[in-house]
């Protein structure tokens, strides 16, 4: 039992820390997220050069063959800077699907591009009726001429506008919320019949609703086993949850430090407001919430390799904790900053918003508490 980082991981941690300090001071973040793309291509290239895009890919695919802990170290660091590049979508989700479910040809073709920064991906799964249920898929893929034709609508696909390809779930069988019958396809973002309605999100990322109208793909676009994609989706989404946990811990840590500092410097009634016991105790509760989230981030990361049930229960528990901690830390950081906390010019509100979106992504605390129960 050991909770410490290896020397290599510590170096990686330092490297991410430098990247965020150099490229993501708050004013820079604002500029980057104000561009039409919402992120900086040169940052993306830098990430590729540093090897981060391939950190979890097998070595034969140009990756580093790293462990979930490496991904955690990167995401926790990126969380401190609200880093906007599509790391989660491309590397954790996209890379996860390709590594775990891609055909040999697909892996050989796509993974080196991904590692090199030449392939951005987005995962198009949620639908208007599905809320957070991964098995609730209506979008259809009908076999036709050796391939498939897809029809349907996916909502709030983070990072879709910049993606080169989409990973889309669709029903090749079954209906409603049946676990069987779901398949995954790798589709060009620009393929005929793929329509994006792009927009900005609360956390200043870019997302889109994606309509699929008679989108034809060949059989080689299938990821994983036909009709049997749900366990793969669950596995990769659990990896995404672990990554979100790490990212949220980075964000909470930043808010904890920022707010503590504010309490030390802001004066009212002739003294730093950090002298007031009620605010001290609130700040302690913020610290505790952050530390509990950190513990769960470590826990789920180390359980990603366990059998599905144990892995998913760990992910569900972690998601509950980071959702609740994140909301509390974000909201209280605003409260303790008083009027200043309400200003868009301060970083605090933006961290709070990202934490709120992290709670929602792939299911909020209520959803995962139910999942945790179901998996007992």
């Amino acid at each position, binding site marked *: 039992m050991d909770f410490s980082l290896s020397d290599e991981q510590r170096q990686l941690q330092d490297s991410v820390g430098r990247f965020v300090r150099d490229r993501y001071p708050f004013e820079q973040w604002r500029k980057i997220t104000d561009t039409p793309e919402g992120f900086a291509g040169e940052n993306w290239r830098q990430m590729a050069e540093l090897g981060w895009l391939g950190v979890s890919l097998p070595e034969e695919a140009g990756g580093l063959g790293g462990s979930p802990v490496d991904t955690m170290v990167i995401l926790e660091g990126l969380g401190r800077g609200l880093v906007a590049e599509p790391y989660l979508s491309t590397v954790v989700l996209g890379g996860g699907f390709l590594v775990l479910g891609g055909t040999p040809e697909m892996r050989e073709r796509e993974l080196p591009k991904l590692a090199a920064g030449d392939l951005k991906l987005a995962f198009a799964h949620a639908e208007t009726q599905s809320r957070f249920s991964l098995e609730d898929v209506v979008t259809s893929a009908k076999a036709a001429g050796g391939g498939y034709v897809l029809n349907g609508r996916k909502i709030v696909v983070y990072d879709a506008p910049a993606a080169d390809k989409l990973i889309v779930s669709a029903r090749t069988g079954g209906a409603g919320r049946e676990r069987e019958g779901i398949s995954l396809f790798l589709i060009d973002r620009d393929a005929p019949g793929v329509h994006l309605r792009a927009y*900005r999100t609360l956390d200043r990322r870019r997302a889109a609703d994606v309509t699929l109208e008679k989108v034809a793909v060949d059989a080689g676009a299938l990821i994983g086993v036909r009709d049997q994609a749900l366990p793969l989706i669950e596995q990769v989404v659990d990896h995404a949850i672990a990554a979100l946990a790490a990212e949220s811990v980075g964000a909470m840590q930043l808010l904890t430090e920022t707010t503590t500092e504010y309490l030390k410097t802001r*004066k*009212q009634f002739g003294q730093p407001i950090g002298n007031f016991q*009620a605010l001290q105790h609130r700040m302690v509760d913020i610290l505790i919430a952050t530390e509990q989230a950190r513990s769960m981030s470590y826990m789920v990361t180390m359980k990603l390799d366990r059998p599905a049930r144990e892995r998913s229960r760990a992910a569900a528990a972690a998601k509950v904790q980071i959702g609740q901690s994140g909301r509390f830390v974000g909201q209280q950081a605003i*409260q303790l900053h008083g*009027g200043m906390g309400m200003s*868009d010019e301060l970083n605090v509100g933006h961290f709070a918003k990202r934490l709120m*979106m992290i709670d*929602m992504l792939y299911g*909020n605390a209520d959803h995962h508490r139910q999942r945790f129960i179901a998996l007992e």
Partner: protein
Amino acid sequence: MDLSFSAEDLAFRGEVQAFITDNLPAEIRRRVQKGEHLSKEDQVAWQLILNQRGWAAPGWPKKYGGTGWTVTQRYIFDEETAGVCPPLTPFGLSMVGPVIYTFGNPEQKAHYLPRILKAQDWWCQGYSEPGSGSDLASLKTKAVADGDHYIVDGHKIWTTQAHEADMIFCLVRTDASVKQQEGISFLLIDMKTPGITVRPIITIDEGHSINEVFLDNVRVPKKNLIGQEGKGWTYAKFLLGHERTGIAQVAHSKKRLARLKAIARAELVEGGPLIADTTFRDKLAQVEIELMALEYTNLRILSESAKGKPPGPEASILKIRGSEIGQRLTEMAVESLGYYAAPYEGGRDGSNQPIGPDYAAGLMPAFLYGRAFTIYGGSNEIQRNVIAKMVLGL
């Protein structure tokens, strides 16, 4: 003890309902109900309609153009208008108006009160400063006498609607040599006076309703002083304590709750309506019950004040619970949207159609701006200090 309304009260309710039905412009009603942004023009339009009926200032004495309503009538009026009609902007009608008719001189009353009623003057409030938030009495903006004028220099912040205002009522320091509270005066300042600069503060909802106001060598006629020099703190406290009936925001929270239930009937979870989801329903019922307790606490305090007892520091309970429940409801509304909570463009003006369902309009801005419920008007931490000291004697 009796919960029922008298026949007169019920008749009054009918009268209010009929008036709204007959007079509220349909487009404004639609925008209020959809939670879309209301412009100053919308608010002014509705205030003028009310004023024609003599209803623009429910809290004012009749002789100044108020209604002379009982506390119960005002409660009914709030219930009927909340979430249906545009809220009346409080700075003139609920804040400086009562200060003027209570402490102002005859000229001030004659000049300002009709202009407030007719929305000829739109007011804002110059209290907070960058260094004086919770510790309001430490304010530094100074007013130095110069003949029949004051020269005002200072920096106000969190000034809602300053960019749309004709007038600002300001707390200023006219004497730095006495105890903090005793050197403060209450001054009315024309926003067009040279030396005043308004800088927008964009809030976390990306909307613009709040500003900084810089006062640089601003000449204010002495006739704009309310009451006596050095008594401004008294008037400010009067003002804070005066308008307590709306502080609990019960009528608004009830409307928010109803809207939330409607959304939860439309949203799906696991194939069924969200409102049938036990966990969600449980949270909803919990907040509904808390709101009910707040409503009856509010009614108890109203009932006291109907018998002439002014609302005391226990009214801080209304602020604390009202803001907490308001925040909870706005948060649950956002949560109810699932993934469609995420798209966010354009902020509070609501000019963009929501990406998700129509009912998503305005919910996230309301949540974000609502984080201020527990901060402004004396943060909830300050309110708890007040109760500890004034009610519990700690």
